[in-house]
């Protein structure tokens, strides 16, 4: 028998989990994809500190100012206006540097900063200043890429988490109780899922001004069904397991049985699906943005960048940047998904040995 205590991140784990972790690690491509993705994601989470048109730190007359966290009127630095300081203004920079210094982020532009001192008319090609060039409104592409990546991933994650949550609950209820509840819900899902999603989204998005949360809500209306099937099947199967019966004989309430005994079975199928659902959600958001029905104008989005690439064929850096970043991001998701699928595959072990 296995006597050693298995631990993962300080918590004791079952040998089953241990086998899955090692299976996951065995898929090199997926394992590295996960690391690359995690690094990129954490990097972009701090986008404000990497790419911003506000300085990280300003020293002015022996005082320190933190423009990212707090807004200071221009008068603080000896300017004329009571409004918030525009740090990109050469006049303001001059004022500050006379009596102090400025530390800029790595990229001194935010996603909506119009670059003023361009050598050539926008969209301008890549230079040492604008690494990936600018778009047709003179905004720095690198900055937009960083923010766009973040918003896409966050949108994908939020949508995936919310739709899995709803999907798992409804699948669990249908599978566990069965009978009439199951029958009615199934018919409802059949009707609901046959609605043409993209057209509805376009119509709805043109009626109301779309925001991040509104778009999320609209897409959630149609995306929660993707997990219902697998979860329901898993619950239907597991509700007659002996250990579920034993739990019932112990007097456990239904919801607790569902949560503690049956749900872990369904989680295998769910977790396997998650990266693919995330990739799908990102694609839908990107395509809506591309069509112009997505996030409000001006927001950084990869779809909008693709659209610019289409409209400005003479500026290939736009199209290439958008295409490559979307392709790489989705590929990373899919590779991670494949590795997770391997990890939960009970037959994986047999291939190696037995």
């Amino acid at each position, binding site marked *: 028998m296995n006597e050693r205590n298995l631990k993962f991140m300080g918590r004791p784990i*079952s*040998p089953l989990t241990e086998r899955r972790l090692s299976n996951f690690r065995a898929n090199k491509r997926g394992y590295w994809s996960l690391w690359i993705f995690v690094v990129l994601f954490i990097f972009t989470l701090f986008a404000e500190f990497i790419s911003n048109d506000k300085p990280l730190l300003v020293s002015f007359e022996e005082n320190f100012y933190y423009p990212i966290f707090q807004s200071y009127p221009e008068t603080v630095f000896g300017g004329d206006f009571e409004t918030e300081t525009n740090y990109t203004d050469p006049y303001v920079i001059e004022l500050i540097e006379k009596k102090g210094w400025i530390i800029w982020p790595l990229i001194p532009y935010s996603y909506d900063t119009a670059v003023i001192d361009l050598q050539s008319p926008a969209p301008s090609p890549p230079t040492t200043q604008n690494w990936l060039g600018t778009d047709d409104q003179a905004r720095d592409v690198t900055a937009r890429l960083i923010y766009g990546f973040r918003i896409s991933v966050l949108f994908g994650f939020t949508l995936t988490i919310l739709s899995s949550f709803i999907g798992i609950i409804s699948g669990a209820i249908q599978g566990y109780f069965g009978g009439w509840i199951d029958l009615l819900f199934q018919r409802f899902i059949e009707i609901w899922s046959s609605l043409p999603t993209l057209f509805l989204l376009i119509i709805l998005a043109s009626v109301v001004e779309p925001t991040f949360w509104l778009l999320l809500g609209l897409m959630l209306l149609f995306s929660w069904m993707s997990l219902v099937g697998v979860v329901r099947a898993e619950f239907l199967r597991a509700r007659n397991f002996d250990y579920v019966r*034993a739990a019932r*004989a112990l007097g456990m*309430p239904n919801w607790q049985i569902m949560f503690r005994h049956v749900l872990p079975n369904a989680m295998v199928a769910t977790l396997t699906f998650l990266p693919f659902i995330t990739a799908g959600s990102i694609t839908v958001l990107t395509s809506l943005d591309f069509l112009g029905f997505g996030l409000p104008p001006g927001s950084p989005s990869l779809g909008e960048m693709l659209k610019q690439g289409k409209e400005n064929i003479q500026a290939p850096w736009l199209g290439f940047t958008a295409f490559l970043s979307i392709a790489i991001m989705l590929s990373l998701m899919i590779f991670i998904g494949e590795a997770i699928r391997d990890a939960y595959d009970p037959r994986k072990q047999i291939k190696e040995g037995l």
Partner: protein
Amino acid sequence: MVNPLLLVEDLSVDFIVSGKKIEAVSNVNFQIEKGETVALVGESGSGKSVTALSIMQLLPYPSARHPNGSIIFNNQEVIGSSQGMMKNIRGNEISIIFQEPMTSLNPLHTIEKQINEVLFIHRGLTKDNAFSRTLELLELVGLADAKKRLDAYPHELSGGERQRVMIAMALANEPKLLIADEPTTALDVTIQAQILELLLDLQNKFDMSMLFITHDLGIVKKMAQKVCVMHKGKIVESGSISNIFDNPSHDYTKHLLSAEPSGQALRPKRGAKRILQARNIKVWFPIKEGLLKRTKDYLKAVDNISVEVREGQTVGVVGESGSGKTTLGLALLRLEKSEGSIEFNQQKISEIRTNKLRQLRREIQIVFQDPFGSLSPRMSVSQIIEEGLNIHKIASSSNEKTDLIVKAMEEVGLDPDSRYRFPHEFSGGQRQRIAIARAIVLKPKFIVLDEPTSALDRSVQAQIIDLLRNLQTKHGLGYLFISHDLKVIRAISDRVIVMRHGKIIENNTSSRIFENPEDPYTKSLLAAAFDLEVIKTNKI
């Protein structure tokens, strides 16, 4: 000197599993003469089946290897022989019958097609010839109405009938050697007796040799001339039936022979309280037909059954598969909807609300048959046992909880230090102990034991029976013991109910049932179980 039909010399089998070598069989020697039956006996995991499969070269090569040894069949070396030669041997000269008749037939083909296949491959018969031969075979194995059943699919046949079809397939080419790998383990006792009789009969007819693999010594005694006792991949003792049974020399053989569940059932104390009384329990499943799903008829799984259990008493429920024993157990626990009245401790529980019932669940517990399925694979032993304590809020502090868990584990004979392990690290018997610990930690008064020993080896069965009996003496528990195994029932039950098709056939004290059965069905059950003999009864 004439060479034996099969000569296995110094045979070893290794498996390579994720880089590690596991020795399944080591240095096994035996031989089978023409027309002789040799039995391989041992508990699960002792390497019996692996030995048999290596004769057919059906192991998952190359992860299975034979580091040494030879298998000589009919003067030909089998190990390392060509695929072409093996094809000629398999199914033609050596046939095999597997344990599980459910899964060893293809569910998508009619039985005629499956038997024909064997004839086409090895005999090259034409379709017409094959048809008559198939019919002949099915009649030979005693399949009732053989002509009408040719087009039947496996699911339309009962377990015993399926096993007959398997035997027909195995005999299609009149093999010289038949390997029977636990052919009757999945069958009811009366069917088992019939199948064994059929095998003996056919062996005489064709002058076949047989390698009979089983864990049941009763069957060995009836079927074989020679026995090889296997233990942990080695043959620890071999010899003729009379030698082994009368003068076992190896400790393990002695252990196996004495492993029959024995002992006396506990008698309840005089005037012991009645803890469970059920009257006229009915569980009818409606059979719905037609467009409007109107109920046409009922499947009467449990039909008008009354049971009474006293404190410290075990009531055994015996019956073949499909007789409704398990449904009865579930109905008494109100895990299955039923009609009729159930009283527990003078309190009517057949009609009380779910919430109130939940409180009572503490005192009524259940232990299931399959110790692999009844424990959640994702929880440690401690979590499994703790669950009931949490639900009923029995222990207030976590120290108190741990004390109760440790005590329960000690009571069922498990090492309390192993409580952080997961179920799959335990053997079948240990898992069943965990399931019992989960039940008794709540200090119940009444436990339904649904075939708690059926998935276990004989020697482990005896231990579990002893454990259950000890717990009963200590806590005055009432048991409803459901089993198809009459030997186990006899060892533990004070009263026995014989069920068939959802009805009670006989209900009497244990001694009366076993010594003086009244009903012919009970008589045939007893004959099949204890003497492996077939008594023809009229179907009821």
